[in-house]
């Protein structure tokens, strides 16, 4: 059983962490520091400090002191070249005089110099190596829990609180970072190997659980708790003296862990730095495992540690002591980050020698050490300025740096943090904040309370992007005919969550495939899946009233069996959406089931109902918005309208082309002649045995029907149409062909040809605004816009030469920016490139000459207001 460290086998024992295994094997230098590349060894052994970060199985910056060792793990050191023992960048220490705090702000004020310097800085910055782009992914997941009481920390105080709450019948969840197991008789749920990293609004706890099961690396548990008990205890922070960062200088809690958890003897002769007089508990621990305690000295007597790659002694006012272990009985700091995030105040308690939480928000309590830390701190909180006394181990900030910064005016703890970067490293301030505050207070002559603490921000401890991102299921929306499209060779495009066929690969190139689809529609017949359209049914007495209020045109007078184009504007007169609104026939007349007995005549029908019913289609992307918009205007109005979202319930196709009638008539007994089923009419009928709502509309400019029918028959009806259409050369067509077809008709697509400032007037759709209605949404603004001079207009254009601009190309008039192309395609009907474009008012006249940028060069084009194909709409009415 071993792990590999830099390729070398290191044996592991039961209960080992990666760091304990390495330490047992004799490793003393675990990392090199951020700025000066000083050797660093185990300091906290509790996952707080930056001293043991390594690359484990390809993942950088792993805290090896809390990572269980597993056979076969590949561990590599980081931020040291060529090795931890010899790092050539350690030479940086010799140049520390060049790099005092803020040195980069004061140098390189010449941008060119900065550019060169930055390139060098970036060569040596950072900690671990980024994994390569093809690095293996890992499994992460999310979970959700509800709790009456959530207890953070399973120490004695936490467990007491948990048992007590459970005895009162609460559902209790306990979160703890250790690998404990729930006792068999327990009345609470224990999440072990878990830590709470954030206490968010609404008492939402973010909890990170390591290896929840063998198939997942981490799980983020969201716990929503009615009451939260914070029992996070206290942690120990280092003391500051010269060379306090040498390997072999450890916190007492770290020494305790090495001895008790891992059975390691962390040295042979030790000096203890402690305020406690007499023989301390830690001294007894050391002696128990055979470590000689050379001396116990108070922090105020410590002058400096000696040694180069490991501590060899401690110089104090009481004399110099040789040793290979220095045990710091450091500051005991309440782990109050979560409480602070929740809004508790942290108040300096001179008695406790710590910031303690006060003014806890409702439903949050603190128990145990976090509520009142033990006085075990050094009496002298802070050290004097020195260039080798490290306050911030993460970013190599010394007590000298802090003093200098305060003198420069960065004398508020928040400014000090930003200027020196103290508290901003991987330890998140745990190791350094108190020291920084203490020095700042001393240097400014202010009280510690007045100096304040920095804002505690989640996540603390940090959380991986993987855990936060979770399983990353991206929902996909598929139409009922999805797999038929796939079989037909669909090339997909994304529209929100939807997948739609962009075109069907039927020829060598995309262009040829699209043209084939185009010609089928113009010359024979094509069919497109339009199931993604939003579909809403409105029922109730006041449906017409609602539509008249919300849409710009009028619908209360729409005759049963008819369809009308619909535009929706906001109160500022901006177009929000468009679509069709149809009023299905009031009864089953026209709904020819071929069943004279009428047993199947109405149910299951598609939107054939009472006289007050309407059927709305919206654009694919705006369904949610339109539904909410209608509901909003309905809220509190007291009107009798029920809105039913049928989008997922109905499949829809558009069958179009000169042969559409022949194809459809093979599948329905519904009369399809112009007399029986004129343009802009709608009927309920069975198609291929499926009840359907048929609308005769013509977005692509040919005779055609939009057919809405139950989704479960999606494949059936599509197949029936394809079969019936085969003799006529039916071709399925995709979004690209549809866009070309409609462009020749100058039909506008909301969101493509319009934007967040477009009114119907500028878009050339003045006719959809019915100002004679007493009131409707946008009436006031549209009234003003009607009489105002339009700033810009949506126009058609034809390219003078044989070039096709891209959608979005700029338009120039006399060399100046004068608009943009919204859609442009080569038109087989016009035999030239055509398009729609926004142009400034002066360039909007029929025949106006503009220039359009194609591949960066201006090309001449002619503005037109005319429809490019079948301007009279004769083909729609054939």
């Amino acid at each position, binding site marked *: 059983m071993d792990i590999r460290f830099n390729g070398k086998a290191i044996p592991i024992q039961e209960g080992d962490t990666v760091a304990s295994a390495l330490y047992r094997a004799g490793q003393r230098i675990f990392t090199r520091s951020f700025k000066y590349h000083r050797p660093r060894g185990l300091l906290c052994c509790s996952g707080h400090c930056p001293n043991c970060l390594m690359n484990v199985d390809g993942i950088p910056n792993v805290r090896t002191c809390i990572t269980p060792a597993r056979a076969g793990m590949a561990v590599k050191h980081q931020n040291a070249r060529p090795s931890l023992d010899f790092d050539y960048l350690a030479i940086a220490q010799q140049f520390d005089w060049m790099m005092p705090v803020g040195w980069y702000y004061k140098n390189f004020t010449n941008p060119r110099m900065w550019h060169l310097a930055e390139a060098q800085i970036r060569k040596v910055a950072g900690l671990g190596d980024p994994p390569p782009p093809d690095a293996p992914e890992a499994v992460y997941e999310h979970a959700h829990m509800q709790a009456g009481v959530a207890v953070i920390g399973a120490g004695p105080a936490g467990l007491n609180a948990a048992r007590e709450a459970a005895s009162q019948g609460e559902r209790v969840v306990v979160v703890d970072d250790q690998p404990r197991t729930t006792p068999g008789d327990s009345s609470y749920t224990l999440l072990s190997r878990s830590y709470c990293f954030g206490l968010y609004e609404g008492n939402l706890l973010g909890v990170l659980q390591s290896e929840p099961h063998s198939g997942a690396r981490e799980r983020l548990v969201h716990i929503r708790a009615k009451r939260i008990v914070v029992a996070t205890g206290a942690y120990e922070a280092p003391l500051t003296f010269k060379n306090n960062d040498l390997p072999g200088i450890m916190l007492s809690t770290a020494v305790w862990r090495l001895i008790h958890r891992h059975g390691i003897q962390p040295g042979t002769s030790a000096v203890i730095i402690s305020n406690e007089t007499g023989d301390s508990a830690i001294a007894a621990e050391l002696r128990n495992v055979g470590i000689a305690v050379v001396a116990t000295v108070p922090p105020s007597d410590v002058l400096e540690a000696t040694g180069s790659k490991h501590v060899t002694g401690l110089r104090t006012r009481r004399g110099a002591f040789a040793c290979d272990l220095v045990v710091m009985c450091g500051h005991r700091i309440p782990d109050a980050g979560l409480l602070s995030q929740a809004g508790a105040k942290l108040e300096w308690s001179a008695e406790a020698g710590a910031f303690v939480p006060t003014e806890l928000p409702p439903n949050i309590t603190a128990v145990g050490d976090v509520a009142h830390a033990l006085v075990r701190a050094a009496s002298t909180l802070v050290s004097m300025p020195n260039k080798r006394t490290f306050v911030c181990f993460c970013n190599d900030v010394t007590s000298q740096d802090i003093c200098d910064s305060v003198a420069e005016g960065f004398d508020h703890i928040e400014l000090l943090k930003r200027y020196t970067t103290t508290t901003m490293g991987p330890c998140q301030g745990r190791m350094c904040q108190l020291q920084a505050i203490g020095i700042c207070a001393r240097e400014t002559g202010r009280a510690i309370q007045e100096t304040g603490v920095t804002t505690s921000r989640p996540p603390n401890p940090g959380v991986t992007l993987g855990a936060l991102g979770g399983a990353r*299921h991206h*929902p*996909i*929306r598929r139409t009922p005919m999805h797999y038929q499209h796939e079989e037909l060779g669909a090339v997909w495009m994304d529209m929100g969550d939807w997948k739609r066929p962009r075109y069907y690969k039927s020829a060598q190139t995309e262009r040829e495939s699209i043209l084939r689809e185009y010609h089928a529609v113009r010359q024979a017949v094509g069919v497109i899946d339009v199931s993604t359209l939003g579909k809403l049914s409105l029922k109730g007495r006041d449906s017409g009233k609602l539509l008249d209020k919300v849409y710009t045109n009028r619908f209360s007078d729409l005759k049963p069996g008819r369809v009308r184009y619909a535009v929706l504007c906001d109160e500022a007169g901006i177009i929000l959406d468009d679509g069709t609104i149809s009023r299905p026939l009031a009864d089953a007349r026209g709904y020819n089931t071929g069943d004279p007995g009428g047993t199947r005549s109405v149910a299951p029908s*598609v939107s054939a109902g009472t006289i007050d019913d309407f059927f709305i289609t919206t654009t694919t992307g705006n369904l949610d918005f339109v539904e909410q918009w209608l509901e909003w205007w309905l809220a509190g109005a007291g009107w009798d309208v029920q809105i039913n*979202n049928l989008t*997922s*319930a109905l499949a829809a196709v558009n069958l179009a082309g000169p042969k559409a009638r022949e194809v459809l008539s093979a599948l329905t007994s519904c009369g399809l002649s112009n007399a029986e089923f004129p343009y802009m009419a709608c009927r309920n009928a069975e198609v291929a045995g499926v009840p359907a709502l048929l609308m005769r509309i013509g977005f692509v400019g040919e005779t055609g029907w939009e057919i809405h029918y*139950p*989704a479960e028959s999606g494949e059936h009806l599509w197949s029936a149409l394809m079969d019936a259409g085969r003799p006529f050369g039916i071709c399925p067509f995709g979004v690209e062909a549809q866009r070309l077809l409609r462009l020749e008709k100058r039909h506008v697509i909301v969101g493509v040809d319009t934007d967040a400032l477009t009114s119907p007037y500028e878009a050339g759709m003045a006719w959809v605004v019915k100002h004679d209605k007493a009131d409707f949404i946008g009436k006031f603004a549209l009234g003003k816009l009607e009489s105002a001079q339009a700033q810009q207009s949506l126009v058609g254009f034809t390219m003078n030469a044989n070039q096709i601009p891209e959608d979005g190309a700029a338009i120039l008039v006399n060399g100046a920016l004068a608009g943009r192309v919204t859609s442009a395609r080569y038109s087989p009907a016009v035999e030239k490139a055509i398009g729609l474009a926004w142009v400034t008012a002066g360039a909007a006249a029929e025949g106006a000459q503009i220039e359009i940028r194609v591949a960066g060069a201006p090309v001449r084009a002619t503005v037109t207001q005319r429809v490019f194909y079948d301007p009279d709409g004769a083909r729609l009415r054939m």
Partner: protein
Amino acid sequence: MKRSALHRWHEKAGATLAEENGWYVPLRYSNAEQEAGAVRGSVGICDLSHLHEPLSPYARFLIAGPNTRAVLSKLTSLNLDLTKAYGSVAHVRSLVTRHELGFLLMIPRDYAESVWESLLHAGEEFHITVFGLEASRRLEA
């Protein structure tokens, strides 16, 4: 014949499909007794979309077995003590109803396959099974 949103999925999974009330329904994927046993022992999902009202926007799944809540809690923040609630399941607004065997999920039809896959993924740690109508009848019996 009417098809559930998962029809193609069932076909690919090798389901034995039969006709019921004008719908294709998955009877079993392998062995009904084994499927029922796997559900009793852990968790499974079944497509009951054919049981819906006319013009329903929903596909209908049954998730059943002792690990049902553990799987669902990975995909929804809904409080599963409620008997019936709308909420987001695998990022899709759905209706979740308690059922004697577990929960009924009403998923918008066009998202059905996406959510079905998410359920299978979330259930991997519990060796989630798919089960057909035959197994569901055994479980209800």
